[in-house]
């Protein structure tokens, strides 16, 4: 990976000069826009929640943000999703600062799943999913055949057709999470940002939701950034992990690179060790 501060320049050059574009196309991800942050800081009342984070997520990959409580994971995700404005620094998408995009333009490229999805209880699942088309048709535009088609696709992708006409209120936690992810699918973006999508779910539903996200990422070639508490879940489903500690990015790499006793101790500040999953040959972390 090139010098992290300069990656967007390369990307912009790549799209501008054909020669470079050919040269980088071999790596497979250069032709798609990448999401990233440049010197991103966020402070409230003089307290730094995020300090000068520069990061580039690889297009088409599922990236996991991990770290201790209050490490700035969710803050970073909120800044990436433009839910909050950074104190300093920029969020870039495809090399461009996202501040250049209008609200709806942004929502056509990047979808965000908030941590709290208790709202929308008086909608049917299909109505909820159809909300995802707003960035495309706007406040007054017609709800076109394409919009309808995308909603049905999203319902099919998430296997929600049988409960499409049920009220969101009547769904279980896992089903509700799936309905919201279906809404993000209907939004038809290239990039998903998920803030702890599994926090209120039991272990079976955690598996269900994360497997769904991973499958969608693979099938549609989506870039996904997901905040996860559970390091083992993150290691199992993510292509790459990014660790935050006290508002700073301290490590990144493939799960088997990251899941070592030294790195884990550095991230969480507690002695941890790693073993192998007996059946799947993936790393499993545990506290010593």
């Amino acid at each position, binding site marked *: 990976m090139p010098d992290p501060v300069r990656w967007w320049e390369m990307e912009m050059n790549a799209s501008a000069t054909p020669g470079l574009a050919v040269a980088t196309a071999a790596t497979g991800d250069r032709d798609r826009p990448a999401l990233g942050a440049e010197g991103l800081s966020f402070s409230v009342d003089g307290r730094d929640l995020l300090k000068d984070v520069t990061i580039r997520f690889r297009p088409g990959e599922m990236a996991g943000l991990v770290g201790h409580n209050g490490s700035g994971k969710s803050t970073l995700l909120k800044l990436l999703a433009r839910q909050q404005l950074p104190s300093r620094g920029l969020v870039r998408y495809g090399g461009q600062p996202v501040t250049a995009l209008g609200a709806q333009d942004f929502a056509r490229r990047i979808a965000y799943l908030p941590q709290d999805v208790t709202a*929308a209880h008086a909608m049917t699942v299909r109505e909820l999913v159809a909300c995802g088309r707003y960035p495309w048709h706007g406040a007054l535009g017609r709800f076109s055949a394409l919009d309808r088609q995308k909603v049905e696709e999203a319902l099919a992708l998430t296997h929600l057709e049988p409960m499409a006409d049920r009220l969101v209120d009547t769904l279980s936690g896992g089903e509700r999470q799936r309905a919201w992810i279906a809404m993000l699918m209907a939004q038809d973006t290239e990039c998903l940002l998920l803030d702890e999508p599994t926090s209120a779910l039991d272990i079976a539903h955690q598996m269900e939701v994360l497997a769904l996200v991973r499958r969608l990422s693979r099938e549609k070639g989506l870039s996904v950034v997901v905040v996860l508490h559970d390091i083992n879940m993150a290691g199992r489903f993510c292509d790459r992990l990014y660790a935050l500690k006290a508002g700073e990015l301290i490590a990144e790499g493939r799960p088997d690179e990251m899941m070592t006793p030294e790195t884990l101790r550095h991230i969480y500040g507690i002695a941890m060790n790693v073993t192998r999953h007996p059946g799947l040959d993936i790393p499993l972390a545990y506290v010593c």
Partner: protein
Amino acid sequence: MTKRPGTSQAISPAPGGIGAAGPRATAVGDAAAGEVSLSGAAERPAVTGSARAVFPQAIRAHAGPAAVVAALMGLALLLAFRQAAPILAAPQPAPDAASAMAATLFFFSTLPRMATALLAGACLALSGALFQLVLRNPLASPTTLGISAGANLALVAAMLFMPGLLGFGRDLVALTGSLLAAGLVFLMGARHQFSPFSLVMSGLVVSLWCGALAAVLTLLNDRYLESLFIWGAGSLSQQSWTIPLSLLPKLALAGLLVVLLLRPLFLNELGEAGAKALGLRMAELRLAAIVIAVALAAFVTSAVGVIGFIGLVAPTIARLAGTRRPGAQLFWSTLIGAGLLFLTDTALMALAGQVADFLPTGAVTAIFGSPLLLILLPRLKTRHRVMQAPAAGRRVAAVFAGSRGGAALRVILPVAMLVLLLAVFFGRSPDMSFRLMPPALFGDLVALRLPRILAAFAAGMMLAAAGSILQRLTGNEMASPEVLGISAGATLGVAVAVFVIAAPGLFTQLGFSALGALAVLAIIVLTASRSGLQPERVLLAGIALGAMVDAVVGVIGATGDPRAIFLLRWMSGSTYGVTLEGAMLAGLAAALLLSLTALCRRWLDLLPLGASAASAIGVPLRPARLVLMGLAGLLSAAATTSVGPLSFVGLMAPHLARQLGFTRAAPQLLAACLFGGLLMVAADWIGRSAVYPYEIPAGLVSALIGAPFLIVLMRRGR
């Protein structure tokens, strides 16, 4: 976790899959009906009868509200027809002068009145529904957010000081007033991220304050009193078609704008983060919707005065009748509101006959509306918010660091002594100059001043204690006896006393006001006891009852009975007539009740942790809440007899104490009591020396000065 072997097929838009969605899309209300495909039929066997299967569902969604509207309108028309029948049956042209007069009255007074009722009801309900949707707050309405009261105050002020302004632009005056009120409420609500509960609390405070100021203005201008009262309480009586014809285009325009907002409002249901992530510009949506809603309410207030509760009740009925989508809620709320006010007004005309013109419909809707709110209470979802640690207190408390306010107390106590001494010995002399009391007049003046100062101090202390208790009990910093309707209950008690006994003595007044306060408290406790006296429910019940009592008092005022003026003076909270006996009584009550309150300080410390945490430590929740509420009720009743129901001391004093860093119950109570007493004494002093030789009632002074001060404090606390 792929359940299908070939999931890639699911991505490509299979025609069957899309077609299958057709009928179900129609089911949720989309206009275009899709074709029924084979795969759809496989999934849903009954799909051949899709028209049959789909149609009832679409109808069912609208059947409930339609039935409600039909019932309201039918009943209203029936009543209206009974009045209209003799006139319509009379031969045309009229045979004699009397029937010609009746016909003229019918066509130019009764019919326009009905039209006004329909239109005003529709406007208010649409406004309320819009507020509820955009704020995602089932309690929002022009009444509860103080919008109508703001418009009312602006109109009263304009009428008294710049009558020319009204001819120039009556709507504009009302609109300015309500926008200012709305701005204030949202400014305060922003502190709590627009939590439904806090917003309504702030709205109520603004509403009460506007009411208090409007009352002072009318009090100072007696000759306008009666007609202002009738209009201010919302009278629909009409002399021509002007008002309904001017309301109609406004409602139509607002309706059109609302249609443009429908889709963003639907998205708004996803919650702040979700809607924002979809590219919805929340700030713009909120601004647009709130401006439309405020304008609708302001136009109605400008046309017919304050009509309470239609804006709150109509959307609630629409929701309970089964409307779900924002569009349907707006539509049906508007119709239900129109029907509701129409029915109320025709019923009023049928029952009251000739007096109807002087019985303000607005007050009547409040009398009917608030019990309805009480009934609906258990169906409203509220969430308990644990009180936040005082962020602002840190800054000030740093000055008295480590002492938990002990050092602050050492400063406050001498200041309190000084203020009390000044209040007794310093004042205005007949030549208008401020001077210390000459020793020669010592005996006379002390005998005049001491009772009222003692009464004011005792009342202030009791209100502050009641406010502290209620705020800790409910975890809401906007709770106070005024807001809870306890003071209004005391007022109602005195109103009854005034009308039953010609000249009630002090003890009778005290007794009746205590009875009124305790009656309100008892109803509140009874209606809220099913939820284990959950503070939110208690407060909401209090709000409803308070509004009802206010409406009753408003109706009494509108009758123009001379006793109403006595009541109004009493409500404004004058310490003018306090005798030494009354002052001693107030002091005694304060001493007794405050020492009882001190015994409960442990409970007060633990209750703000939240109900489950407090009961887990072993606080007996129900008895504790019952005792504390009883204390708060008695404290407010005793205080109300000497300083009136509207002083805001019960809100201000605990707030001041918290801002200074008194966080634990006992020091906070002590500091709040001192502040409360001092505030009341200062208000009394200002009241008797500001416009000397005239007097402004102390309760009004403290309300008028206190509420803006409170707002500033709360802003700084951010």
